[in-house]
């Protein structure tokens, strides 16, 4: 492409330098984009992959049935589960299994979200907390109680096990 030859003023660069200085000067009074982090927190978007935690359903039942799929899929092997059984006299006895121990090593977790994706019971969710810290390695291996503390209760759309129990009672185990 044929370019327009520079004029004498353009060859000295002076007009360009002056206008450039003008731009930077204006920029100085622009609103600052710095976010002063510990005081101002960035907005966390929906679906953010932060700290993983276990959740209970609205009835207070722990949703994890210790199928160990998350333990199996976890790329850095941060999750370790010891399965246990639910006592016969519990109202959730038909679920049969629940984790006895459920540890997530937050130092190993890479926040990939595969555990959440793989969980058939929708029992593990990645929260919006990204700042996980402690003073020792042991402190950062979260056990079951802590994980439930963090996760809390989550709205359930299915009540899978409840419906199953009701279906068994009404004699239609396969819906």
């Amino acid at each position, binding site marked *: 492409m044929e370019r327009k030859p520079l004029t004498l003023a353009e060859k000295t660069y002076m007009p360009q*330098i002056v206008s*450039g*200085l003008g*731009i*930077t*000067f204006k*920029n*100085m009074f*622009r*609103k*600052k*984009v*710095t976010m*002063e982090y510990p005081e101002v927190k960035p907005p966390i978007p929906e679906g953010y992959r932060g700290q993983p935690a276990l959740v209970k359903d609205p009835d207070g039942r722990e949703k994890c049935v210790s199928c160990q799929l998350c333990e199996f899929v976890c790329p850095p092997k941060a999750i370790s589960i010891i399965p246990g059984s639910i006592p016969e006299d519990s109202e959730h006895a038909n679920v049969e299994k629940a984790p006895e121990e459920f540890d997530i090593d937050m130092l190993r977790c890479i926040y990939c979200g595969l555990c959440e994706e793989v969980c058939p019971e929708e029992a593990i969710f990645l929260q919006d907390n990204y700042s996980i810290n402690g003073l020792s390695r042991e402190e950062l291996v979260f056990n079951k109680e802590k994980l439930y503390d963090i996760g809390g209760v989550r709205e359930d759309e299915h009540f899978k096990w409840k419906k199953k129990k009701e279906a068994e009672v009404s004699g239609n185990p396969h819906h």
Partner: protein
Amino acid sequence: MTQSDWIDLLVKAGLGLTVIFSLMTMAGMSVLAERKVCGFIQGRLGPNRTTLPLIGSIPIIGRAITRLGLFQLLADGIKFLFKEETVPGHVKKFYYNLAPIVVILPSLIAVAVLPFGTYTNAEGVTAPLILANVDIGILVILASSSLGVYGTVLAGWAANSKYPFLGGIRASAQMISYELALGLAIVPVFLWANAPGSDVALGLTGIVSFQESHWFVYLMPFTALLFLITLFAETNRAPFDMAESETDLVGGFHTEYGAFKFGMFFIGEYAHIVFGSALFVVLFLGGFNFLPMLADPWPAGILGAVLSTLWFIIKTAALIFLFIWVRWTLPRFRFDQVMHLGWKILLPLAIVNLVVVMIFLAIITPTAS
């Protein structure tokens, strides 16, 4: 020596230390200003967190100082002091240690001949505030500030590795090509000031008193521009910071330096900028004179001395701001472009400018006012 001689010597030493201390403080402040202005231009806040336990918790002032980042100076200084001094095994030790000192000295020497204020005593006799009121002021400045580049070259040479070496070579090449234009840009000022009947000679106090009513910056704008451009090159500032262009030379001449020795290069560079700004103020912006075509409002006595010095510092600070502002606006020249600009454009222009000023002065023949 008699007792009064000793006292005289002590007072002079004290004054000298005061000036050096002020220069160093201003250099430190310009480091901070650089970071702040750079932040502002880029839409950031700059350093605003560093604080001291007691002073920082004074209600309004403490917070203001913290937000301005003034404690950052202290933190950086302490950091430089307490870092481990590593000396790489391959350097030439003597010159390696000498270089930071050589870098920092010239501006400390040259500041001695810089008039920074005026003092009028009760009898109405005015005297400039200056450490050494010599007739060859500008020669002292040219001679000693040219020495500054030896520190850079020494550092590049003593580091004994390729990038610092290239930095040193670039510094010397740039220095040779711009010193000429710099000198030629100063000559018109002294030509004009040394009008028939004046006793300015080559001293700087005469230049300042000559500019009492009119400043050279608008009497000779083109000369001022030439001087400013060469000053940028002389102080190794962007867009001419060839010697340390970190994108192509790692860190340039100070690549192999760390801890306090690096700190000395750093502060030396800023002392150079402060001194360069002050020199521009003296030569073109009327020094401590108030405003062109206005009589100086400085009262007699100490107050006038302080006010005029403050005014001088304000002018210098404005010029330092210009240095910083330009750095964060313009991209760096390529090395061959710097050489092209220096030899083929600035030098001929400086010569033409000198001739034009000479002819102009021959026509109007100014008289000493």
